[in-house]
């Protein structure tokens, strides 16, 4: 059992949520309540990571993060290390790969709030920010929760992007799913089996937690 790989996986999952959720809420709400030119293009771009093979996505991200790219050079200059094959690079790649898993459920969550309920909040004297915090977020909560869970579960299982962008550096970019592949190649079926079972347990526990949390959500209209 590779405990370091488990730690990297969990940190990557939590980190991706932390990085992506605020942006996802902003973008998802924007797509749900506003009409603007180019909305269709934005919606298409948000979905791209979902349909692209992970290796293709990983390839482009690697090119973008590489030492010869402006982003890679800027990161190198500021942080003193390369973005590709680092945990930070992996986190960024994971966030990008998870955009559709975050934006779409959140968008649906905000879309499900009836227009008159949002308007009623304004008529109660709530400023747009108060309305967002006190009315919209609680009502879009099932969507936000789904987004967080999907991201976490998807990050834990991500393989192609991780291998392409992160490589297989212990303690840095070797996640549990990569470690399983690594052990299998070394004919260490036992370790691979333990780690696979660990991921299975985490997946089941996550889904159970989702059910518990979403039960606390109030039915929308009676």
């Amino acid at each position, binding site marked *: 059992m590779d405990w370091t790989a488990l730690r990297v996986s969990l940190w990557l999952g939590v980190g991706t949520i932390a990085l992506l959720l605020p942006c996802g809420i902003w973008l998802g709400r924007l797509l749900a309540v506003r009409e603007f030119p180019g909305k269709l293009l934005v919606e298409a771009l948000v979905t791209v990571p979902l349909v692209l093979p992970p290796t293709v996505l990983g390839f482009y991200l690697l090119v973008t993060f590489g030492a010869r790219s402006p982003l890679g050079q800027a990161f190198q200059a500021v942080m003193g290390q390369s973005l590709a094959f680092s945990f930070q690079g992996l986190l960024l790649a994971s966030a990008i790969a998870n955009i559709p898993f975050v934006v779409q459920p959140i968008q649906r969550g905000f879309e499900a709030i009836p227009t*008159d309920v949002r308007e009623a909040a304004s*008529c*109660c*004297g709530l400023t747009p920010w108060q309305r967002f915090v006190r009315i919209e977020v609680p*009502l879009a909560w099932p969507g936000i929760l789904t987004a967080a869970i999907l991201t976490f579960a998807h990050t834990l299982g991500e393989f192609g992007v991780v291998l392409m962008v992160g490589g297989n550096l212990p303690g840095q970019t070797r996640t549990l799913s990569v470690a399983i592949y690594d052990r299998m190649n070394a004919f260490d079926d036992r370790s691979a089996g333990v780690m696979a079972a660990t991921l299975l347990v985490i997946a089941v526990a996550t889904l159970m937690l989702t059910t518990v949390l979403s039960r606390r959500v109030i039915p929308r209209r009676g």
Partner: protein
Amino acid sequence: MADRRLSVTLRQHGPIRLDVEFACDAGDVLAIFGPSGSGKTTILRSIAGLYRPEQASIRSGADLWTDTASGIFAPAHRRAVGFVFQEYALFPHLTAVGNVLTALGHRPRAERRSRAEQLLALVHLSGHLNRRPNALSGGERQRVALARALAREPAVLLLDEPFAAVDRTVRRHLQDEIDELRRTLDIPLILVTHDFDDVVRLATHLLVLEQGKGGACGALPSLMSRPDMAWLRAAVGLGSLFDAVVTHTYPSRGLVELTFEGGALFASDSSVSAGSKVRLRIPAREVILATSEPKGLSLHNALSGIVSAIHIDPAFDHVIVQVAVGEVLLLAEITRDAIATLGIVVGMRVYALIKSVSIDMLKTEAMHAQEAR
């Protein structure tokens, strides 16, 4: 009270056509009446700042809320508007008291809770403070919506089809409650409805709307006695509306005597007591005209009056005759043939025969409260 008067001018070509201009004084209830799709809700949304029409000027007392000419548009949360939405739009994740608390942000924190409970008591919901909307009936949700709208201490109260989703009995109760509230509020109240029953029972003024265009507008009784309201005739039938006092009751005969300005009539009703004020509606097609005093009739009401107007609509096979009986203007719907045969002309003395069964009695003191002010 002129300082709380709401003045509204709206003009727009599309997507929803608007062409209306009206004002409503504090204490008055202006009913905006029209078929669905005529732009009624858009008018309310414009007043609340939820919709920005092409050209608009909306003033509440001294506050200019919208003025497209000078680019003024106060956002909804800065307008003191109480809005009761058609489907109530309660916050489903909050309790009844939580819904009302949301609209009390302008009050000091310590007072909010007690004020919210007070408002819910006002709408008879003290027992359901901690219920969520999905555990409330339609009528109860409507009351929460009303309490929430009042919580803001609005300068104008907007009601969008407030009774559309409740059954007849609940509707009557709510109508009475709103009528009672209205008298204590002293703010303009705008009621949007497609049900004429709401108009008759609650409104002091009426604006008839056709495809976004404001038609006749004015005090309800004077509007209802106009003979030329073609659209109203098609929608609900013409009929004059006026107030009277029950002056005598004759229980043995099953009759009551109703006195109005310039006359009296009888109605068969045993539910009202002497001294109570009522609103009468006499449908035009329930009125028959005679040129000489009729004798030997089974009906009680033959009122003498002077023909004050005759309206002939080429698209309609009947003629509407307006008859002045004292201060009240009655309408009679008769055939063109009868006009010619009887030789009815303006200024002529006629007798208006009213079938007693056709008299609606409405328990309201609305118009009298108006006069007393």
